[in-house]
């Protein structure tokens, strides 16, 4: 299994996936901070293809969001690569390789969208590894499509977001939320219920 060194904390690929699936705030942030080591290689890739540092940062942000959502949706899994030789050590698709490919695709999409470079698509696609069958790379959608937060933020009102954030993410009690918002506990419960019902309709559509 691949083990990538980090300044402070190191995670194996398996630990990255398992950690993200625990959906814990602190662990998720630590893993994301660990994955930040790939920013440099992605910056090189973007800048080698007529991009700027700012573009590379955007690509990295989008890449992480897509990766998180793919792990949570179980679209990304650590799959053992087939080998004809039974004696050979087990091989897995590296997260580093996967993220790099993901970033490539995101940048390609942006390049095509911006029409920055003519004939760039052909050149770029020629460089791509076509053996993507073990990954959901081909299913990549844009950040706008996959971002859960953007989806939620675009559909719910500000007070909804505040209450859901406080209750589900910051683990605050109904009483604490009521005190902060200067409304009754009953009102908090009603608003929360309505928000969840609205969100439920959106995501089960």
């Amino acid at each position, binding site marked *: 299994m691949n083990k990538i060194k980090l300044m402070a904390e190191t995670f194996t690929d398996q630990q990255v996936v398992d950690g993200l699936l625990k959906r814990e705030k602190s662990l998720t*942030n630590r893993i994301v901070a660990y994955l930040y080591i790939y920013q440099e290689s992605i910056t090189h890739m973007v800048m080698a293809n007529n991009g700027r540092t700012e573009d590379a940062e955007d690509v990295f942000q989008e890449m992480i969001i897509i990766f998180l959502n793919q792990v949570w949706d179980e679209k990304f899994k650590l799959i053992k690569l087939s080998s004809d030789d039974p004696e050979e050590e087990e091989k897995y698709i590296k997260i580093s390789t996967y993220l790099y490919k993901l970033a490539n695709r995101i940048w390609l999409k942006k390049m095509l969208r911006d029409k920055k470079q003519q004939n760039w698509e052909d050149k770029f696609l020629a460089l791509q590894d076509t053996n993507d069958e073990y990954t959901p790379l081909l299913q990549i959608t844009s950040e706008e499509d996959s971002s*859960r937060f953007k989806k939620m933020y675009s559909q719910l009102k500000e007070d909804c977001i505040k209450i*859901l954030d406080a209750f589900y993410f910051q683990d605050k009690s109904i009483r604490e939320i009521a005190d902060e918002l200067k409304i009754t506990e009953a009102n908090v419960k009603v608003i929360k219920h309505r928000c*969840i019902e609205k969100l439920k309709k959106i995501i089960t559509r």
Partner: protein
Amino acid sequence: MKQAEDHEEFNTIEAYLLNQLDKKTMADVEYRIKNDSEFAKKVKEIQHTQLFIKEAFLERSALETIKALQQKDREKFKKETQPKRKTVYWKKVVSFAAAASIIIISYLSLTPVEFPDTENDFHITRGLDTTNFTREQRIAFSQFFDGQAHFAEGEYLLAVRDFENAATVKNVRPYFREATQWHLALAYTKSGQALKAERIYKQFSECVDCEYPISPVNRWKLWWRIQWAKNGRLF
């Protein structure tokens, strides 16, 4: 009424999913899930929504973490590149100063020292009335212009001799006397007698009531030539 029931049911499901129910109520809910498909579907939908909310906030938090790291890196990069920028700036300044110095030195070295044209200043040099000239004065004026001619021909030693002779005459206008001294200094410089040239230069360089007008640029040219001649270089 239906709304209140729905709300109550939602609270129960949510509490069940957050593991906040007592054992008996928990068992009741689990029984309903097994035997009431409609209820089981509701539980699943709320669970799915809760998960979605949690992931949405996790995603926002992850994005904040990345942005903070990127910001930190930008600041680090800025700090690292700032001294380089300063170095580049100072390199440019030094290069510019060096280029300017070369231009100035070349100008001072290569362009000729220009003194006011004495031949066209006959009256200033000699006075309006030329009939009362002594023989000595006439020789002095003649030698001065001979010196100029020798200088122009590159006969610097002869020019020195002419200017020295012209300078010995006392009863001449200050303008002429000063012109002779300046020409003599230049002739000394050209003939390799830098120390003599320097003595004359020092005598006149800070003169406040002198009549023979030498521009600062031409003074610098002469001074520069004297310094180079002192170091064995000839112009």
